[in-house]
């Protein structure tokens, strides 16, 4: 039950893109076409889940255990950068087809603030999900990270669909490109606000 709440909350209620504003740069950058948006979402999903798992363990068993919390930001970003590199190398060897699909997006992900944002949030913030507020356990953290990245994908794919339609329409000159995309994102965020309060 609790995991269900985490999933609904992370995908709809607190959508990472539309209500927390994490990872907006690639959201605007690669959402022109549905196919690239799907590729990016897949890569982000993979990296966020893996990065959260690794940073959670590093934080608990290295940084906190030795009183090195002040290295948190540095350690996390290095882990994420290394992880992205590793995923790239492994993927190239193991599944060239998947690498071909996700490959070009992988290097971009290091500077996607959604990855670092989720990793930091998970170890510093208290969450509720229908229980008294508490720090997340490892399983909860991984489920939360996965669900959050699915939410990222959902928003990304819906939005790229909208933008594909926009591209064919006659938009006033000053609105062309990013401005009209931002306005439509605003309306989409308005729609997602309808979910607020669904999960406490």
């Amino acid at each position: 039950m609790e995991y269900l709440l985490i999933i609904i909350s992370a995908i709809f209620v607190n959508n990472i893109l539309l209500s927390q504003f994490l990872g907006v740069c690639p959201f605007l950058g690669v959402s022109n076409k549905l196919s690239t948006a799907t590729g990016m979402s897949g890569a982000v999903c993979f990296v966020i889940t893996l990065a959260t798992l690794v940073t959670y363990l590093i934080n608990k068993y290295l940084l906190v255990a030795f009183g090195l919390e002040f290295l948190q930001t540095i350690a996390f970003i290095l882990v994420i950068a290394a992880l992205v590199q590793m995923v790239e190398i492994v993927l190239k060897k193991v599944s060239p087809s998947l690498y071909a699909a996700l490959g070009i997006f992988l290097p971009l992900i290091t500077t996607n603030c959604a990855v670092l944002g989720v990793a930091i949030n998970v170890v510093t913030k208290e969450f509720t999900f229908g229980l008294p507020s508490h720090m997340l356990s490892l399983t909860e953290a991984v489920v939360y990270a996965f669900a959050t990245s699915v939410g990222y994908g959902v928003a990304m794919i819906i939005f790229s669909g909208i933008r594909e339609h926009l591209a064919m329409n006659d938009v006033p000159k000053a609105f062309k490109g990013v401005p009209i995309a931002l306005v439509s994102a605003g309306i989409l965020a308005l729609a997602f606000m309808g979910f607020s309060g669904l999960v406490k």
Partner: protein
Amino acid sequence: MSKLQLFTKGILKENPTFVLLLGMCPTLATTTSAINGLSMGLATLFVLVLSNMAISAIAPYVPDKVHIPVYIVVIATFVTVLQFMMQAFVPGIYATLGLFIPLIVVNCIVLGRAEAFANKNGIIDSALDGLGIGVGFTCSLTVLGIVREILGGGSVFGWKFISGDGMLAFVMAPGAFLCLGYLMVLFNKIAKK
């Protein structure tokens, strides 16, 4: 390019928010009020100037293959320093901006300037470039914050001139996207004349 131009180009011609479209996450998330936007801009300015200077100083000695990780480590160091300072001296602002202070590390503006400018220019030029881009970013964030605060709460910098609540949607997530979209239209209209 003269020293003055180095500084001023970041404010209008290469404005990070409206022209280069960089650093969108903090732009949207922290501009719920004028003062929040201003503080976020200044925090980024601090990191930008220092990291630009440090990177321009070490760039000749860093092997090409590891330059990105090295830059990121340098930026992360300054961000963490800023984090401690804010916790100690302005805890209120730190609590409001929260997650977005550590996230300056992955702000594309900072790494972007390191890659595009600081690693091939002198320390003073890099500092001026960082200052210009930082001031440009701060201005955009403050303007967006002012607009959202007026529409959403009927006040500017906490000074209330309309009683009542205002249109709350503008303080919340959708308003961020809408306001930025329309400001960009306005900027395009004015800048391209």
